[in-house]
């Protein structure tokens, strides 16, 4: 099963490699870059939601931490971008660990509550710590990402960088799912009691996955900062956290491929359908509700049903 995922990954990589030859328009490239950045967050989030059975309502804050830390470090303290990205990821991981340690020991909605509160606090800090973040007006002039001698200053270069990282992120996620750890996580859908009596420390894996998903979001945030080169708090509010959750659920939360699909559809569709922009709140609410009630396996589940009319869950949960 891991092999078919590798094959899909390879095809994806090949398709991506040729996309810029087919579309040279920077507008489309730009959209695809944002799809890539968002996908990186939702891949991590789908690990948390689909496999650890937990929900985070604060992933926009982890995204924001990655973005602001990278931005501040490399603009105000002249830290090289790659080091700043790694430092930001490390710091975000620590923060996630601090949140996850106490709350993931408890069952149910505690992580959701804590991440909701945390997300809002981070948002307030971005707004109020004017000296560092520029406050509500934001701050700009963030340098471009530079790796070795290569400066990622064009959309084309950035496209390859972002999607390269998405492919790597997918590779990691697929590997985790098809490993000892992935199996341990999947037990939690059925019975945490049984998992415990097999020696599986479910709390530990939940925390690990939560931290990993925060790191995905942080890296995505750093990529955002170096791409847009301007940050303001509005991007990192609670509504983005909820949009991310919507993307994962819509695409199918039991599959990392679902996260990718959901992100792509919900990022691209509003660009071509005006009606979605006018009533975005209404549309997203309705989409989320309908998906949860009528096809909880999301788009990927629907596609799976087309190809495999009867038993759909087991393979698609990969």
């Amino acid at each position, binding site marked *: 099963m891991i092999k078919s995922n590798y094959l899909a990954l390879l095809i994806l990589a090949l398709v991506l490699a040729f996309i810029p030859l087919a579309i040279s328009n920077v507008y489309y490239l730009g959209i695809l870059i944002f799809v890539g950045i968002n996908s990186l967050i939702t891949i991590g989030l789908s690990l948390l*939601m689909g496999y650890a*059975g*937990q*929900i985070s*309502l604060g992933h926009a804050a982890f995204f924001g931490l990655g973005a602001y830390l990278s931005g501040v470090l490399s603009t105000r303290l002249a830290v090289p971008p790659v080091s700043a990205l790694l430092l930001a990821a490390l710091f975000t991981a620590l923060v996630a660990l601090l*949140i996850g340690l*106490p*709350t993931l020991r*408890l*069952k*149910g*909605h*505690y992580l*959701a*509550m*804590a991440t*909701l*509160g*945390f997300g*809002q*606090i981070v948002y*307030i*800090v971005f707004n*109020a710590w004017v000296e560092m973040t520029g406050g509500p007006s934001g701050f700009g002039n963030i340098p471009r990402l530079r790796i070795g001698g290569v400066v990622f200053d064009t959309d084309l270069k950035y496209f390859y960088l972002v999607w390269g990282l998405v492919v790597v992120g997918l590779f990691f996620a697929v590997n985790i799912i098809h490993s000892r750890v992935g199996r341990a996580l999947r037990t939690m859908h059925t019975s945490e009691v049984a998992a415990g009596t097999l020696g599986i420390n479910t709390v530990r894996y939940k925390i690990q996955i939560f931290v990993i998903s925060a790191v995905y979001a942080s890296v995505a945030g750093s990529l955002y900062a170096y791409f847009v080169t301007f940050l303001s708090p509005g991007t990192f509010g*609670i509504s983005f956290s*909820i949009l991310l*959750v919507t993307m994962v*659920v819509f695409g199918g939360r039991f599959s990392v491929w679902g996260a990718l699909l959901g992100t792509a559809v919900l990022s691209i569709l509003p660009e071509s359908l005006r009606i979605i922009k006018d*009533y975005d*709140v*209404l*549309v*997203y*609410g*309705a989409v*989320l*509700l309908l998906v*949860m*009630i009528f096809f*909880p396996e999301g788009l990927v589940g629907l596609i799976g049903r087309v190809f495999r009319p009867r038993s759909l869950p087991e393979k698609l949960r990969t």
Partner: protein
Amino acid sequence: MTLGSQILQYIISGISIGSIYALVALGFNIIYNTTGIINFAQGEFVMLGGITAASLVTIFHVPILIAFLAAVIIVTAAGAFFERLAIHPLKNPSVITLIIITIAGSILLKGIAMFIWGKDTYFLPSFSGDRPIHFLGAAILPQTVWILGITGLVVILLSAFFKFTLAGKAMRAVASNRMAASLVGINVKKMVLFSFALSAAVGAVGGIIIAPIALMDYDKGAIFALKGFAVAALGGIGNFGGAIAAGLILGILEALGAGLISSHYKDAIALMVLLLVLFLKPSGIFGSAQESRLKKF
């Protein structure tokens, strides 16, 4: 203005906003106790109550008392409708499903409000004017008196409902043991519907009495939900007395924090309290650890 009367003024402000937080938290608790669901759409009930009453009064010139009752009835219906639409069809939902569903519900209610009322801000005139009552150098708004009075009334009515009525007793039975309640013939599904309707009504009352102070627009629900949520956690989820005490404590804490320290981080105070409670004493300051462990989640 002396420091003493300043502090008194802060406490008065804190109590009035804290009462609203307490009402939102009560709404959370009503649903949580019967269903084990944290209803993330609770704030939207507050917004709907406020905006409905405000538009009835300012656009249709309905007398305030009738607008009050009409808004409560409309929002109660919305709460029941939400339960039928989103919660009722689910079979054996997991916690994460319920969280996503109620979030979806909150976005949808917000979207519908935007559709109906647009993005404009609505205001409701104070129930009995704006001439403050002076008390030891502090000014008390007549609306504050209304808020305290109505909140107190809601609390008394709620506890009477749970103590003396059949439906109230049935809801308490479902809260303490869902399985046993259904075995003795209580229609659990109906109680779930009741709990959504009831907590929508309580939320609506909160929205209406704060509207003369706060102004209302379609996007105002989230902030009330967040604060009410922190209050519910602080008081111990499901604990009614705890919610009221925690609401007042948090309201006063916020007001004192903003007044004596800094208003820049005012909103962060409630959230920091929320995180601290979740980390250090997840059962809330008024709940016992044992109780929270035995809860369904």
